[in-house]
């Protein structure tokens, strides 16, 4: 270390090292700025907002912002909904996309390339293009006409309404059609293609069937891909707004949906009393933002090393 440092200083490399750290600090600052702002703004007492000497660190702390935001967002309930959707979809996505990715990576079958092009197509078409029929199909759930067939046989109307039900998220995820599932299939395909096929061949020789090989040999060796897909799916489902707003109805609200309507809801809660005071509203909204990102933030602190390492070495080409 010492000699290396000496070498660096002698060769004028210290300047570049210094520059590098300066740039890094600047980058870190501008990335952390919104979060720092959130913290600072949400714990500030209203009097401090008018105090020009207070820039970052408030002199008077106040927790009313958090209390109001917590109440208005129905935090625990919303958090529960978000976690259920995030975790459920993430697990289902890992399984369904790993299966599809493995199929694409290791087997040859007719129209394989066309099917894979379709996987990419699902990524390119924005959800908004298909949201209307998507919504109405969820409202009158009738996969391939099976439900109407059963209704005819039973002689009763058996309409299933999935809007407002978390199944409207779980079923697409289980079938590899959730939020950005195409990307997960792509990741798994790349990963399995990079794995040596010697393992599978020896498993086949030992008489293990494809499914058994997949679950007992391939999946345990695909931990990096699984962690990546799980965390991506979890984060994107947790942070989703558009589909959650449409498909969960008015009664079930996820954290992000609750956050999006916080401004309106706050006006209703405070009841015109302090709504004229933009600073109070702002304090509460910043507190709401902080509360909304808190679960992800905690997860991130625990899992970031694992996530980053997995992604760096996943071998996407």
């Amino acid at each position, binding site marked *: 270390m010492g000699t290396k440092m000496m070498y660096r200083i002698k060769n004028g490399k210290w300047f570049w090292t210094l520059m590098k750290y300066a740039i890094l600090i600047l980058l870190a600052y501008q990335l952390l700025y919104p979060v720092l702002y959130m913290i600072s703004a949400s714990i500030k007492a209203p009097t401090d907002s008018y105090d020009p000497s207070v820039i970052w660190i408030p002199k008077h702390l106040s927790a009313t912002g958090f209390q109001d935001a917590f109440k208005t967002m129905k935090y625990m309930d919303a958090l529960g909904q978000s976690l259920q959707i995030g975790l459920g979809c993430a697990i289902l996505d890992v399984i369904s996309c790993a299966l599809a990715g493995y199929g694409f990576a290791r087997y*040859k079958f007719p129209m394989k390339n066309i099917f894979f092009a379709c996987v990419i197509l699902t990524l390119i078409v924005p959800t908004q293009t298909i949201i209307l029929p998507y919504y109405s199909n969820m409202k009158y759930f009738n996969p391939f006409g099976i439900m109407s067939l059963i209704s005819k046989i039973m002689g009763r109307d058996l309409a299933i309404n999935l809007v407002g039900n978390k199944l409207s998220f779980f079923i697409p995820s289980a079938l590899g059609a959730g939020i950005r599932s195409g990307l997960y299939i792509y990741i798994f395909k790349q990963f399995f293609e990079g794995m040596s096929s010697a393992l599978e061949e020896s498993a086949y020789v030992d008489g293990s069937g*494809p499914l058994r090989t997949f679950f007992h040999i391939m999946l345990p060796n695909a931990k990096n891909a699984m962690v990546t897909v799980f965390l991506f799916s979890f984060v994107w489902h947790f942070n989703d*707004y558009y589909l959650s707003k449409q498909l969960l109805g008015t009664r079930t609200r996820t954290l992000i949906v609750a956050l999006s309507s916080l401004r309106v809801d706050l006006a209703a809660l405070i009841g015109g009393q302090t709504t004229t005071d933009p600073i109070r509203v702002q304090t509460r909204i910043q507190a709401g933002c902080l509360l909304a990102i808190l679960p992800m933030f905690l997860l991130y602190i625990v899992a970031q090393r694992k996530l980053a390492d997995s992604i760096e070495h996943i071998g996407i080409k």
Partner: protein
Amino acid sequence: MKKKIPYTTKKKIYGFLFITPWLLGFLLFFIVPFIQSCLYAFQDLQTTDKGMVGTWVGTYNFSYALFRDTDFIVQCVNSLKDLITVPLILVYSLCFALLLKKEYPGRTTMRAIAFLPVIIGSGVLMDIMKQDVFSSGVKGADTVYLFSGGGLTGLFSSMGLPMNVIEFVNNIISKIFDLTWRSGVQILLFLAGLHNIPEYVYEAAQLEGANALEQFFKITLPMLTPMILLNVVYSVIDIFSDFGNQIIQMIYNTAFSNVRFGYASALSILYFILIAVVLVVVYLLMRRFIVRPED
């Protein structure tokens, strides 16, 4: 007697079985709604108690969007203008990824901060951020933040700069935020790409006497071209399907506030065609530069 199926046929069937769940989901949750959406676009849909009833209106919805609805074309052009951030995102995320590649003290922390937007940067949060954090400041709360438009506006106007210059600078500052908070996934993909370039290539180049700059332009950049394409495509889609995008909001309002489902479908189909055209152009432009390493 059971007939023996040959191994190759069996493999085909197994392959098909593996993708069957995806295929079902693809048909059910993509192809069916997509075709329906296309059909809706040619109809005038009314919601009645019996569900939706449509009457065929031919291409009326499309011609209305293209020739009579002045808003749509304007918003499309605006969205296209937003694409100017794509090269900026690429340069920024590539530089950041390069900074994160080599080991040095503090690298893990820095990497964690770099990926932060991926974790918490949902569209809703970005929207609130833009309204509150980077707005010129709520009256009375105009404290001086280094990055906030409010503080800088005061500083610049006291320096005697003209108003349009200040506005321009403010725009750039709010764009910096947009830029950095949109680049999380791209940094991540570039970093993964950088780790895929085998170390021996660099060693060989060093032996041949290539300096850092030559190594970057002759090894790193060509080897990253597939990743650059992926990132361009990702960024374009990300910008076009963003929560704050005006056309997305317009389609949403047309459908759910004005209850004009047919027209909203036509708008979304046109919008998709626009995205597809942009992506095809990007692909054709970049195709010549893509390097596919053979190994």
